[in-house]
């Protein structure tokens, strides 16, 4: 009885937030689609699902996201190993740099990519512009950081002794990896992969910009149907399809994640320096740096060009509102707004994320209890899988009257961003917290510690590192978020990505340069914040 009360108590707040800001708006929007002239008409929705175009779109979404996720995992794992299990000069800087793509506005990345692979670009001979390969490369570019960071956080706290024992007993490195390391990392890998898949499946700008309109995904289709055609029936059909597909994915991921003995022993040792045997790591890191670095370098170079000369003029122009250029706000103001919003979104998603994680990872006594916890786990992943426009229009039509008259509230933006970041936070925390041996908590309790004290001495030290990783993610997601932010009302205070879109969407050589410069500022800010977060440590980590 006490346990179920505790379960309900801890999950009440996250559930209420999810209910008001996700379930209500999305169901409001979907039910609009089911109503034809005020009557309930499910036939129309079903008819949409039978269209050949819908099947084509669904198939493209599934295969491109799957390939991109596999590539991100394959490339990300060795990099995570090098950056989190090896010690060398500059690894912190590298870690924060690799998170940069995560916040770059898609429109700018699209431009940077196409400067490289377009017909006239240095890689133009590859003929990648407008191909599915370009889309997949773009998806990997954006998401490889998720694998590196989420798996890296788990790998860092993995006890190296079992692997060393296996090696001492004569197992080769590949054998050790397959039989010892991989099983221990599986929850983290599956977690990261499912998040990456969701991000890929709902990618919008990448598919349109790099695919040259030849490809459409479920997400781009919903966008077109909702914002351009106002065909809510078809949009509802696709939203339901999206939700079903994601639910299926989550069930599969949940199965794959479960390991018989999830207890993680945590490592306390200083990592060694890279050795010659680490060459696969070095190769993969080189590849990822190339993939991430080339477009970013193109971006930086572009931002330093004014006319035919090198100059800092674009950067100088960012600080003023400029009589010549129709800036929405000076980029410095916009950056301040972005940072403020990101602080809010971060604390919101972290507090909700910790609550959800605690609820989800507690050992269940009964099968029903385990089901309930598993259901909650999946529920909080859903916001990642639903189109931002569905959510945005849903806000307008459902949050419009007291007591929920919130559609003009300035808090909607950080809340929407927090919802997008929440699955990342949860997926980063769950593998670690789930890996704590429950006997430690029982021991603490039998020594007289109350629930809070137990949490502070057992759970918190283990969670600290993934918590900082998660905070970094949430902050980065918020800084770079465009879809929901652009959709929700702003009042004189646009965020930096919105200013960037505005700049790049209007003629004038200066506007283009300033958009690139503002993107570099956004990227640099993110990297610096990540670097600072990365240096945060609590002394008690690994104290026992």
């Amino acid at each position, binding site marked *: 009885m006490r346990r179920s009360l505790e379960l309900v108590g801890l999950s009440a707040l996250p559930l209420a937030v999810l209910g008001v800001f996700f379930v209500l708006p999305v169901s409001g929007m979907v039910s609009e689609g089911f109503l034809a002239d005020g009557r309930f008409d499910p036939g129309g929705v079903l008819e949409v699902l039978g269209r050949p175009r819908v099947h084509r779109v669904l198939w493209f979404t599934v295969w491109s996201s799957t390939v991109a996720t596999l590539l991100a995992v394959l490339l990300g794992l060795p990099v995570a190993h090098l950056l989190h299990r090896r010690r060398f000069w500059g690894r912190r800087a590298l870690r924060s740099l690799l998170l940069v793509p995560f916040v770059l506005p898609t429109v700018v990345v699209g431009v940077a990519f196409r400067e490289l692979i377009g017909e006239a670009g240095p890689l133009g001979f590859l003929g990648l512009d407008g191909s599915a390969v370009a889309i997949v490369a773009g998806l990997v570019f954006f998401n490889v950081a998720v694998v590196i960071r989420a798996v890296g956080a788990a790998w860092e706290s993995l006890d190296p002794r079992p692997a060393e024992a296996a090696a001492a007993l004569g197992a080769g490195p590949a054998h050790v990896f397959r039989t010892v390391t991989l099983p221990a990392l599986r929850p983290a890998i599956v977690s990261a992969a499912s998040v990456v898949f969701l991000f890929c499946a709902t990618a919008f700008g990448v598919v349109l910009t790099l695919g040259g309109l030849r490809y459409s995904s479920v997400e781009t289709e919903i966008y077109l149907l909702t914002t351009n055609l106002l065909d809510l029936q078809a949009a509802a059909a696709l939203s339901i399809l999206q939700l079903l597909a994601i639910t299926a994915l989550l069930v599969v991921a949940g199965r794959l994640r479960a390991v018989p003995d999830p207890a993680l022993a945590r490592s306390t040792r200083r990592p060694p320096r890279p050795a010659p045997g680490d060459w696969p790591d070095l190769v993969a890191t080189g590849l990822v740096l190339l993939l991430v670095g080339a477009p970013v370098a193109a971006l930086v170079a572009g931002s330093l060009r004014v006319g035919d000369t090198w100059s800092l003029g674009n950067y100088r122009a960012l600080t003023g509102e400029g009589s010549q250029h129709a800036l929405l706000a000076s980029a410095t103001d916009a950056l301040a707004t972005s940072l403020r919003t990101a602080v809010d979104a971060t604390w919101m998603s972290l507090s909700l994320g910790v609550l959800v994680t605690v609820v989800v990872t507690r050992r269940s006594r009964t099968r029903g209890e385990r089901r309930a916890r598993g259901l909650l786990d999946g529920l909080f992943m859903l916001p990642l899988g639903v189109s931002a426009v569905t959510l945005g229009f849903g806000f307008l039509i459902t949050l419009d009257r007291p007591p929920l008259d919130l559609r*003009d509230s300035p808090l909607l933006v950080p809340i929407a961003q927090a919802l997008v970041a929440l699955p990342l936070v949860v997926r980063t925390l769950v593998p670690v917290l789930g890996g704590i041996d429950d006997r430690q908590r029982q021991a603490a309790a039998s020594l007289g510690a109350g629930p809070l004290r137990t949490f502070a001495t057992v759970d918190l030290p283990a969670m600290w590192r993934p918590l900082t990783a998660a905070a970094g993610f949430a902050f980065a997601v918020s800084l770079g978020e465009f879809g929901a932010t652009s959709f929700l*009302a702003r009042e004189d205070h646009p965020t930096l990505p919105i200013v960037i879109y*505005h700049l790049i969407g209007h003629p004038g050589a200066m506007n283009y340069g300033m958009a690139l410069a503002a993107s570099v500022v956004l990227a640099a800010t993110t990297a610096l914040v990540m670097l600072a977060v990365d240096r945060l440590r609590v002394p008690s980590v690994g104290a026992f």
Partner: protein
Amino acid sequence: MRPIHALAPLVPLVALALAATGCSTIGDGSSDGEPSAGPGGTPTRVVLVTHESFVLPKPLIRQFEQQSGYDLVVRASGDAGILTNKLVLTKGDPLGDVAFGVDNTFASRALDEGVFAAYDAPLPDGAEQYRLPGDDEHDLTPIDNASVCVNVDDTWFAAHHLAPPKTLDDLADPQYQDLFVTPGAATSSPGMAFLLTTIAAYGEDGWQDYWARLMDNGAKLTAGWSDAYEVDFTQGGGQGDRPIVLSYDSSPAFTVSDGKSSTSALLDTCFRQVEYAGVLAGAANPDGAEELVDFLLGPDVQSALPDSMYVFPVDASVQLPAQWARFAQQPSEPYEVDPASISEHRDDWLREWSDVTSR
């Protein structure tokens, strides 16, 4: 593990960051906290709902607030399509008092749904021609216009000793193979305008064939205007290699150096987009709303339009900025498609267009 003093250098950094950003948006003085009505229920503010591209210089906002005595709250988000659909979905319980930015390609949808209340604002000289055909009640007031036209890079054509194209037909001429880039109709508002140009030029049954010829001649499609102009166009921000691009009639005013523009707009390939303002049905402050519509038509806002929003004013007597007056020519007879017809066929046309272009 790291001892606690590893944290020490961070303390001032974090403190600085938090101070610089004012910590968070919560508790920020936002206008939502203010009462929307004064004593006796008289409204104290006007809420303008508009799209992301709306920019009005701050002094003009202050001027309106002083003249009218109302606070002006601007809620800008999304593009013209999103704006229209928002208005349709929230009709009866509007998001504000005035909407600005619904254009002639989306206006019929909003009119059919009864989003606006009639207001017959006195129009300045020359603005009458921009009225929306079919808007007999005068729900909508034209505020600005800009034409979507094919642009060419004159320096490129001079360097290659080739006469630049002039007409839509020229674009399908093998002379100009692989030279044209345009944003797609499904994902971009100028792209949609170009599709409408071709529908007006070749008829409802002939445009499909034209697009097939265009694609056979190597026309390139991009997602948005910035992809076409900034990446692929030879005079854009990057290193593009296509000298013909879809853009606006005002674009040549932005490629000026040494007193000459390196690009020009082909004035026989244009579709005119007009943006409207309207008082929303069920507005909390209809009087303030009407006052704001009048203000948008006034000479101060009208003359600020080119520099702040890249569009032409509807007031013919307003003086244009120097660069515009010299280099931005407007088409005298742009192509037109009946707004009601756009509203009715948008879905079919876009589907057919997608089929033709992805063949």
